[in-house]
């Protein structure tokens, strides 16, 4: 055997090594968008430096940035899931870069929002997150001011603006904010609330300052997850700034969510993970109850307009012929009867002040159910499905909450 033959055989071995399992195309596309978004951020930072502004992105060392990136890799997997959906929507053409100018109701609007979520995922520190959230809230306001051409689009734009304001409010809970950023957020928040009130024809809502008042766990079916929020059983919760996402999650997973209850009743996700053999046969029953059905929630009213209410950071549109039974003001703890439409949308059928018996000491969460909470929920110390009337042997922390009243 000659040296050349020997080399040829090695070359064949190398050839087989080139045949590697392909990477996920969705992951690859998500990574590409991440790189582009990061380059844009650096461009902004460089422009700020040349203008004499604070070099926001140049602060952390590369290692710190990389550590943060590594932390975010798990989130990227979820971003990839989102991008997969987006790719499916936008597969007809190269539409990504046109999305930024889109408005609610446009085909490209979900792409715009997904791109924002990617940018939030990449924010290097709390100050950067704050800047982005404020920027996005102002973009939502601009979208409304540009005048959506029909009521449905306008409502969608208003809802998006409400969500954006709630996201900016949540920023104040960030621990790593610089004093300058905190002051800027408060100023921006005041302006945003004023703009929102003007849009609704109301006085600005005066919200209590955030503070932590407790913890809560819920179990439910994950419907959507993004860089800054999750939707579980139809309710969207903002992620706390340092929220831990403990597993690779996908829509449809049954999850356990640890919520931080703020002093004003709003809920932030502190931790989310796959539920492990604790929820038992609850899922189907919950799903049944939340589809094409009525549910009741309690929470703190944050804003109310002619078309929607915002409870604990979640905005619900009014159903036609909705009843507003009391004179309500922001800050009131309210009981809301929601109708769950076939597509999962929740609309307000009736809203009233929560009476003491109703409230049972609860100021947040939802899906309290007075009828069918009779199975073993050992390990569930959460908010949902509380039973005010029964006295089952299988009482858990939920019932303890009730007893506190």
């Amino acid at each position, binding site marked *: *055997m000659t040296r050349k*033959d*020997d080399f040829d*055989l*090695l*070359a*064949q*071995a*190398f050839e*087989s*090594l*080139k*045949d*590697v*399992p*392909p*990477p*996920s195309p969705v*992951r*690859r596309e998500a*990574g*590409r968008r*991440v*790189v*582009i978004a*990061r*380059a*844009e951020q*650096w*461009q902004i*930072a*460089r422009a700020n430096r040349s203008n004499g502004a604070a070099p926001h*992105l*140049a602060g952390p060392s*590369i290692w710190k*940035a*990389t550590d943060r*990136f*590594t932390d975010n*890799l798990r989130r*990227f997997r979820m971003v990839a899931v989102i991008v997969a959906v987006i790719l499916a929507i936008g597969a007809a053409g190269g539409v990504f870069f046109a999305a930024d100018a889109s408005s609610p109701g446009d085909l490209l609007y979900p792409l715009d929002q997904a791109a924002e979520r990617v940018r939030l995922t990449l924010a290097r520190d709390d100050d950067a997150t704050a800047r982005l959230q404020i920027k996005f809230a102002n973009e939502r306001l601009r979208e409304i001011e540009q005048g959506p051409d029909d009521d449905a689009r306008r409502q969608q734009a208003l809802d998006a603006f409400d969500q954006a304001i709630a996201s900016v409010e949540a920023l104040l809970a960030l621990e790593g904010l610089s004093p300058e950023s905190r002051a800027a957020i408060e100023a921006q928040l005041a302006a945003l609330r004023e703009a929102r009130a003007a849009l609704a024809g109301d006085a600005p809502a005066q919200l209590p300052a955030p503070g932590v008042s407790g913890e809560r766990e819920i179990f439910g079916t994950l419907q959507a997850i993004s860089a800054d929020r999750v939707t579980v059983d139809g309710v969207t919760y903002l992620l706390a700034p340092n929220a831990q996402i403990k597993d690779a999650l996908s829509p449809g997973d049954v999850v356990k969510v640890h919520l931080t209850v703020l002093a004003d009743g709003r809920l932030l996700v502190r931790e989310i993970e796959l539920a492990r053999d604790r929820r038992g046969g609850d899922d189907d029953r919950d799903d049944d109850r939340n589809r094409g059905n009525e549910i009741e929630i309690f929470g703190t009213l944050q804003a109310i307009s002619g078309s929607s209410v915002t409870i604990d950071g979640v905005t619900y549109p009014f159903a036609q012929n909705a009843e507003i039974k009391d004179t309500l003001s922001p800050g009131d703890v309210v009981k809301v009867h929601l109708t769950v439409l076939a597509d999962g949308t929740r609309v307000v059928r009736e809203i009233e002040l929560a009476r003491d018996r109703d409230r049972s000491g609860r100021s947040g969460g939802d899906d309290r159910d007075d009828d069918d909470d009779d199975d073993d929920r050992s390990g569930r110390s959460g908010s949902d499905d509380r039973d005010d009337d029964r006295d089952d042997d299988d009482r858990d922390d939920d019932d303890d909450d009730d007893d506190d009243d």
Partner: protein
Amino acid sequence: LDDERELLQRSSTLDPSAFAAIYDALYGPLYRYIYNQVGHVETAEDLVDEVFVRLVDRTGEGRGPQKHLRAWLYRVAHNLVVDEARRSAHRSHLPLDERLPDGEPDPSAQAERRIARQQAQQALALLTDQQRAAVSLRYLEGLANEEVAQVLGITAGGVKRLLRRGLAALRTHLVHLGTLSEEVT
């Protein structure tokens, strides 16, 4: 990478389209290089993502590649692989991910390909880390000796020695694994 110099110049201005072009051109080769070192798809995807984020960050900090873009990227990839190997020292390079593309309709030929690849991968995994990196960069990724030297931070002479020993070791391992017949020894 034909327009390496132009891409470097554009990326130095943090032009996002330049980074997109670099990503498009080198994602596949970098992924393959990393995969052949770590043997796991998700790990390779994570690391190749990190390579490109470092490219953007270092460029933003004024510490990006100056002349040799491709070698710079492979060097970052190599360092990440080394770090990953340290972190997961308990893990073997094997078993490897076997989610190969379905390019071969004939099941028996497909099986032969898979076996050949497994044996080649096993033989590669038995090399020292430096030998494996040098052999992969030179013969799988097609880098010049000088580029391999930049990636590994050694001299061109050191690369030649690594390649000579690496190829000899690879051949020996392939013989033991049955890929090369005994008569060629």
